[in-house]
Every structure is written in structure tokens, then in C-alpha cells.
């Protein structure tokens, strides 16, 4: 319902000309007023009048619908209550009072549900004899446009600020857009590229790719993470990863392509450097293994000569060289034999290192234990060692290696015995995804400060006169276990025996 302005009826609102234009369809004045009032009330555009002090005098249904208020919640209130930005409405009113006409003035209005609508306001003041009667305000909802502009601007900002080069081209390969990333990577400004053919970026040996890519795009295909070379403005060749996708217009027709190019030069160089370093490491490792293996073989031959010929000297000339001569020959023979033992262990160590993993079959640990004990039969009988064991599992390991483990650990337990005959217990306990084996003895034990050192190559805690040995046994054990992905350690106290543990993955 229209308020009754002091100016009188609405019928007087149109000027003479418009009155003339609409005149033919109209009946009585009263009828005209009714129809106009209905027309304005039901117009699909939000309309209102505001008084000089900002009080809302009248608003049509479209405005109520737009903001969600009932007439009682809106009409009679001050328009400033519905503006989000106080400064904006102040400015609007101020301008209207000074007789300015507002066109497309943007503002934000708060709806009843708390949401905010962006509007564009056109307004002027209806005056009578210079007196401010009310505004003539038309409010257009531009929220959707505003949102799409925001989305567009955000996307544009993302494209613009991307580290990657993002550009578009048409199906002929002509560059249509060029972001800052593209400028940073390739060195060209948009002015230097937009309108030119994309082949300006391809080094000659990669020029063939361009028509291929365009053909694929025209077929609607994508090019994903294609690694290739491109040339910068100053001629530097970059390794880039390209993703090219078709751009379609509203009808779905492919009109061009968007292209995202990432400079992966550094990554590729790092990968190459890493690969080279890795290959060098593998070569060095294999050289070292080869060296250890052949050294231990090749050293053995001259050593055998020393050993056998010093024995032959002893046999032929023993007693003729005097006691000292015999003693010296004895040193030579023992030295050669000890070195032979060292080389044999070094060979085993190198052999373990060179063995390919994985073992293919499970084997019965108890069978291997029996074998190891048979190898140790001499020293077991000699020392009266008693060896007990729990049930042992089936595990995946090379037989030769498990035999080495048992033989070295039990051999040590016998060798480093205390005053009483060795009592040795072998056990295996399953813990999560591994078997924990243990070899426990009642021997002389190990000072805990050496419990890491004993696993080192040629590391010994005693002279070979006191306890014979090469210092390789535990190093071999550790190497075997490391290659299997298990762990090996010792728990011990001096004089209280030792327990060696090793784990084998299930």
C-alpha cells in the first residue's frame, strides 16, 4: 500500500508526457491510481522512499522480498539500520540532500536472516518547492554478479600469483594469456608473448611436440605432467613438466588450451645427482666387496707357501738350526696359520655381504643348530660343554648363515668359558613380527662398556694367546643379521655370563 505523500496521489507522479503515453489504456483517474499503485507494488525491482532524516516512508514488495522484512519491521525505521557500512549511507543521504543524483551507487544491506546483499542504488530526491519530500530509490540486487566477480578475481589472483607458468593458447597455438609465473620462468613479458605462436618457447629439437600437443588438445585429450625442455628468453634450456588441457566455450566446443608449466630443472638435476651418487656408492660398495673377497683369496696363496714351506723347513732341517731356530720356525708356522684363519673369516664376511637377498625357503632352525653343534663337536667334548635348547622355529634365512650364527655364538660361549664347564642355552621367543633368538652362557662375561665394540671387524678383548680367535666371528654375525633386517646385541656382566640376542623377521 502506498503511503499518502503530502504531494497527493500517485496519479500526479508521472509527468505530462508519460501520462500522455499511458493515457489510451486508462479509465478513470481513480482507476489509473489503483493500477499504477498495483504496478509499482508488484514491480520486480525494489523501490522505496526515504525521508530527509533517513526514515523509510514506503517500500514495495520486491524490496521486502529482497531483504526478508515485514513492512512493520522495515517501514518507519531508519534506512541506516539496514546498511552494513554506516559511512556509505551517510554519504548517500548527504549527496541526496545536496541534490545530487545517485547512479549505480554500491552498498551492502543486511537481510533479516543476517545475510548480506550487495546492491546498486539509483536515487534522487522528490522535492516540492525545493523542499525534500522523499527519495526515489531503486535498489538492484547485484550480489550474484559481485560473487562471480569475486570468484573471478580470486581465480585471476591465483593464476597471477602462481609459481607455475599458466598460459592459454588457441587451437592454432597462438598465446592468449600469460601470467606472472610464465614471465618469471620464461623471462618474457605478456606483451612479448600474447599474440605470438607457442613454438617460440620450444627449443628446435622439441619443436615437433607442439603440433602433436595441439592435435591432442583438439581431440579433447589432456597432456599430463609431460616432462620436456623449453627455452627461456635468454636462451637457457629448462626441464619443465607440462600439463595442457582443452578449454571449451559455453557450447562445449574446444576453443583452445590452458597450459601449466612447472620448472623442474632443479628437481631433475637433483634427481640425477642423487642417482649418480647412488650408483657411485653401489659401485664403491661392490668394488669393496669384490676387493675383500679377492684380497682374501689372493693373499691366501702366498700365505700357504709360507705355512707349508716353513713346516717343510722344520721337517728337513729341524734340530739342525738349534733350539732358537726351531722356535723361530714355530712362530712362522703359527703366524701363517693364524693369518689363514683371519683370511678365511674375512672371506666369510665378504661372502655374507655379497649374498643376494631374499632367501627363498624357510628352514628348521633346530636342524641347523644340530649341524653347528656337530662342527663344534671337538671343543664340546674337550670342555664338557652342555648345550640345551627350547623348541626352535622355522625361519627364512640361508642355512650357511644361520649355521655361522649358531657356530660363532656357541663357539664363543665355549671359548670364553669360566672355571666350570660351559652351560649354554639356546632359545627363541616370538615377539610381534620377529623371532628373538638368544644364546646364554655361564662364561667370563663381557664388561658392558665393550658390548658394542665386540661386534667390530677384528675387534678382540683378549690376546690370542689367552683366548684364540680372529675377532671376526661377531662381525660376521652382525653382518648376517643386518642383511636380514634384524638386530643383534649382548647383555652381560663381567663374571656372570653373557646372553647374545639376535632377531630374525617373521
Amino acid at each position, binding site marked *: 500500500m502506498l503511503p499518502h505523500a503530502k504531494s497527493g496521489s500517485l496519479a500526479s507522479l508521472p509527468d505530462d508526457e508519460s501520462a500522455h503515453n499511458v493515457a489510451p489504456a486508462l479509465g478513470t483517474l481513480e482507476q489509473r491510481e489503483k493500477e499504477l499503485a498495483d504496478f509499482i507494488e508488484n514491480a520486480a525491482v525494489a523501490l522505496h522512499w526515504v525521508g530527509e532524516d533517513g526514515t523509510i516512508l514506503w517500500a514495495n514488495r520486491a524490496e521486502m522480498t529482497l531483504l526478508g522484512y515485514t513492512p512493520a519491521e522495515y517501514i518507519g525505521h531508519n534506512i541506516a539500520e539496514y546498511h552494513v557500512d554506516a559511512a556509505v549511507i551517510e554519504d548517500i543521504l548527504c549527496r541526496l540532500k545536496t541534490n545530487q543524483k545517485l547512479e549505480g551507487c554500491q552498498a551492502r544491506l543486511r537481510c533479516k536472516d543476517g545475510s548480506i546483499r550487495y546492491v546498486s542504488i539509483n536515487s534522487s530526491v522528490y522535492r516540492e518547492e525545493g523542499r525534500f519530500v522523499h527519495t526515489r530509490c531503486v535498489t538492484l540486487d547485484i550480489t550474484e554478479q559481485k560473487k562471480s566477480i569475486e570468484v573471478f578475481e580470486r581465480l585471476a589472483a591465483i593464476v597471477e600469483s602462481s609459481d607455475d607458468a599458466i598460459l592459454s593458447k588457441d587451437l592454432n597455438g597462438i598465446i592468449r594469456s600469460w601470467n606472472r609465473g610464465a614471465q618469471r620462468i620464461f623471462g618474457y613479458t605478456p606483451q612479448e608473448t600474447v599474440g605470438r605462436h607457442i613454438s617460440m618457447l620450444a627449443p628446435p629439437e622439441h619443436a615437433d611436440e607442439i603440433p602433436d600437443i595441439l592435435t591432442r588438445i583438439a581431440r579433447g585429450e589432456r597432456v599430463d605432467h609431460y616432462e620436456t625442455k623449453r627455452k627461456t628468453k635468454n636462451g637457457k634450456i629448462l626441464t619443465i613438466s607440462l600439463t595442457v588441457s582443452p578449454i571449451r566455450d559455453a557450447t562445449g566446443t574446444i576453443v583452445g588450451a590452458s597450459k601449466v608449466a612447472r620448472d623442474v630443472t632443479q628437481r631433475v638435476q637433483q634427481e640425477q645427482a642423487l642417482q649418480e651418487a647412488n650408483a657411485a656408492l653401489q659401485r664403491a660398495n661392490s668394488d669393496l666387496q669384490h676387493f675383500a673377497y679377492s684380497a682374501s*683369496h689372493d693373499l*691366501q*696363496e702366498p700365505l*700357504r*707357501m709360507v*705355512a*707349508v*714351506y716353513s*713346516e*717343510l723347513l722344520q*721337517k728337513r732341517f729341524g734340530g739342525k738350526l738349534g733350539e732358537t731356530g726351531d722356535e723361530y720356525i714355530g712362530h712362522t708356522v703359527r703366524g701363517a*696359520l693364524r693369518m*689363514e684363519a683371519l683370511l678365511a673369516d674375512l672371506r666369510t664376511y665378504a661372502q655374507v655381504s655379497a649374498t643376494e637377498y631374499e632367501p627363498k625357503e624357510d628352514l628348521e632352525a633346530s636342524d641347523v643348530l644340530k649341524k653347528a653343534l656337530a662342527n663344534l663337536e671337538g671343543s664340546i667334548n674337550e670342555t664338557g660343554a652342555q648345550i640345551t635348547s627350547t623348541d626352535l622355529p622355522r625361519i627364512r634365512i640361508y642355512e650357511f648363515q644361520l649355521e655361522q650364527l649358531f657356530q660363532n655364538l656357541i663357539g664363543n660361549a665355549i671359548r670364553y668359558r669360566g672355571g666350570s664347564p660351559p652351560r649354554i642355552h639356546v632359545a627363541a621367543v616370538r615377539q610381534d613380527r620377529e623371532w628373538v633368538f638368544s644364546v646364554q652362557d655361564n662364561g667370563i662375561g663381557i664388561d658392558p662398556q665393550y658390548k658394542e665394540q665386540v661386534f667390530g671387524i677384528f675387534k678382540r678383548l683378549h690376546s690370542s694367546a689367552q683366548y684364540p680367535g680372529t675377532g671376526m666371528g661377531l662381525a660376521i654375525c652382525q653382518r648376517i643379521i643386518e642383511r636380514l633386517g634384524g638386530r643383534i646385541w649382548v647383555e652381560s656382566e663381567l663374571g656372570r655370563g653373557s646372553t647374545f640376542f639376535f632377531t630374525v623377521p617373521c
Partner: protein
Amino acid sequence: MAAVQRFSLRSRAEKANENDPKLKPYSILLIEDNIADVGLVREALMEHNVEADLVVISDGDYAIQFIDNLDGQAGECPDLVILDLNLPKRPGRDVLESIRKNSKCQEARVAILSSSDAAEDKADALKLGAHHYVRKPLRLAEFLDLGGFFKQMLAASRTKDA
């Protein structure tokens, strides 16, 4: 070291009756490049009073020529070939093949005497027709025992001939 060395191993002072085939000295071909091992083989044979003519060849290539030449000449194949695997120029494996191909050497006994304890070397040599594979011992006593072992092989070759 000369390509070929010849040794005459005799246990007794008096000359053996060379006309009696049963008393004829054995012939042994030792193919070995290590002069010290040649010395040890001689020691081992003498230790067991083996009476033999010992021919020593120190490289694989010459050994193959020597074997091949047996065909064209009046020469006879040795009773026993003691062959090292790791030789200059041609490996012992090739020498073994040429021995096995030679018509005159079908009956020759072959013992491999190698420092290798690799199972594949042993299997390969036996497959190619070696009778025995012996790893060069580290202890003198074991090396000297080889003399007895070779003596048995020689005796076996004569028994077969007779």
C-alpha cells in the same frame, strides 16, 4: 721358469729295468705355474717313493700344445696329469677339455690340484672328466699325503692297462 721342466724321480740307486713294462717308471704331467707348488708336489711324490718321469708345464697354452702334439708323434700320454685350474694364458679347464678330446689320453688319470674351494669349480672339473679334485692343502702333512694319493692313482692306471 722354463715352459717345460723334466725331472726323473727315482727312489733306488740302481737303474730300473726299462724294458719290463711293469717296472717302467710312471710318467706324470704336472701343469702348474707356481714353482713352490711344483716343489711340494715333488716332495710329496718323493715322500712316497714314487718312481716317475715328471714333466712340468707352467702355462695353459703350452700345456694344450703339448697335449695336441701327442697325436702326431710317437709320444704317449702320461699316466697321471696333475692340473692346476688357475694358469697363465689358458685356464686349466681348457687344458682338461683338450686332454679329454685327445684320442691318446682317453685313459689318462687326471687330478685337479687347485687353491679354489668353490663348489662350482669342483663340479665343473668332475663333469669335464677329471677323476679327482684336490684343494691345495695348507698343512705340510696333508700336502705330503697327496704323494700317497697320486701313487694310488698311478697304480690304478697301470692295473687298468694290464
